[in-house]
């Protein structure tokens, strides 16, 4: 399986500079790159493809569940060229979005397209944010806030030109929108490319350490005084939900699939660890809008705390309703203690 990294970020935030920098490094020499347009900054790379925007709408019909037909064709084309020996084999794919693109359809394309999802999986989503223009962009452009909301890694760029007075509120705003993402600063080349692109939650050890950091950045208390609606974030907010008793995984799946069916467009990101009856160790969940990635096994409990903790990044949804619904569903699900032999053919149907 080949990991796909999505590089997103608003216009002029440094996406292409980031790409040019990593592609010069030996560990990324077998990386294929797909860009939406050849920008002003040239990328000199032998595995470079350009796509033109094209969209197929899936039956469910919402924007985040679209399959990008252009991307579908381009990825399949790259695969065919590699298998025909026309280009070298590649072990990583990086997709650079346009500055105003919503990355969710790209995630949906990789995860839902039945041929592509057999060969590729979504790795880290990296979002670049301009340290100078970031605050103002996040206040005025909904696309910029959504790009930050769906990211796994945020790279604040051009920090050599930003003062502490600029950086502090920007970092505060980024953590407020997306406490699940790790945050790095860059002045051009001094960033940790391995952490940005290569360290993924699929690695159980990396995943546990990162889960710990992520969970510590979030607030799970239902009693925390609610902030005023953050108008400057276009009502994108994040909050954590904690559940101390073990969870029935089946009930959780029913609740989340039903919730995402109706409200998936407004649930920009779901990330968390669960203590489920079905596992002794934590199960990590991760989703972007309607698309949920397969659950991942983590090898130990962060800080020994065995409660389930989930972070939601939402747009215009009421936190207290999500909390109430989550608790009600899970408490109503009495775990089945039947032995397998007690399941009759009639019950199976």
């Amino acid at each position, binding site marked *: 399986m080949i990991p796909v990294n999505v590089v997103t970020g608003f216009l002029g935030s440094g996406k292409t500079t980031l790409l040019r920098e990593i592609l010069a490094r030996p560990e990324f020499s077998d990386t294929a790159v797909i860009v939406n347009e050849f920008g002003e900054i040239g990328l000199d790379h032998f595995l470079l493809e350009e796509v033109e925007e094209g969209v197929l709408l899936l*039956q*469910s019909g919402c924007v985040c569940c679209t399959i990008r037909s252009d991307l579908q064709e381009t990825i399949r084309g790259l695969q065919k060229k590699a298998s025909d020996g026309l280009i070298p084999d590649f072990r990583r794919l990086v997709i650079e979005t346009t500055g105003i693109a919503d990355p969710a359809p790209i995630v949906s394309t990789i995860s839902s397209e039945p041929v592509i999802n057999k060969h590729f999986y979504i790795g880290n989503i990296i979002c670049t944010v301009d340290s100078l223009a970031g605050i103002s962009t996040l206040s005025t452009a909904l696309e910029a806030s959504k790009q930050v909301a769906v990211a796994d890694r945020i790279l604040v760029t051009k920090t050599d030109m930003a003062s502490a007075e600029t950086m502090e509120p920007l970092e505060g705003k980024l953590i407020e929108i997306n406490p699940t993402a790790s945050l790095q600063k860059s002045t051009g080349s001094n960033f940790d490319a391995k952490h940005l692109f290569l360290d993924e939650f699929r690695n159980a050890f990396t995943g546990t350490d990162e889960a710990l950091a992520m969970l510590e950045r979030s607030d799970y208390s239902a009693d925390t005084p609610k902030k005023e609606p953050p108008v400057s974030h276009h009502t994108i907010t994040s909050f954590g939900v904690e559940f101390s008793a073990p969870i*029935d*995984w*089946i*009930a959780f*799946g*029913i*609740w989340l*699939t*039903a*919730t*995402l*069916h*109706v*409200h998936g467009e407004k649930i920009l990101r779901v990330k968390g660890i669960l203590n*489920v*009856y*079905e*596992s*002794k*160790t934590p*199960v*990590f969940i991760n989703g972007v809008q309607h698309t*949920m*990635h*397969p*659950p*991942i*096994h983590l090898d130990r409990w962060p800080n020994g705390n065995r409660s389930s903790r989930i972070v939601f990044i939402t747009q215009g*949804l*009421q936190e207290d*309703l*999500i909390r*109430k*619904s989550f608790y*009600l*569903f899970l408490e*109503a*699900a009495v*775990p*089945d203690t*039947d032995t*397998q032999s007690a*399941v009759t053919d009639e*019950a*199976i*149907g």
Partner: protein
Amino acid sequence: MCGLCGLMGIEHWTETSANSGAFDGDTERSIRHERAHRVRLINKALAPVRMTARDFQASSYILSSSTGRTEIVHDIQALWAAVERLGSNPVDTLSAEYLEQLSAASS
């Protein structure tokens, strides 16, 4: 459709059999046992919209409305869309009215 499909399971993020690497607890259910448990819980969730679901060969679900209309769906995600196609309001887990009905049915 042959019975083997049920033994092999289906690929969906909610199915433990499709993601066995993530689950290492003592509560290991067979595919059919897990499906039977899921159907019991789905029916609790469907009660407020007066629909029922049952498992079909551990590979699909058959959804039925109170007027007898039925639809077969592949996985649980598709089931919620089918609820609306069969003429019901959506199962809106964040609706105060739905939660009240669910709570009343559970107590």
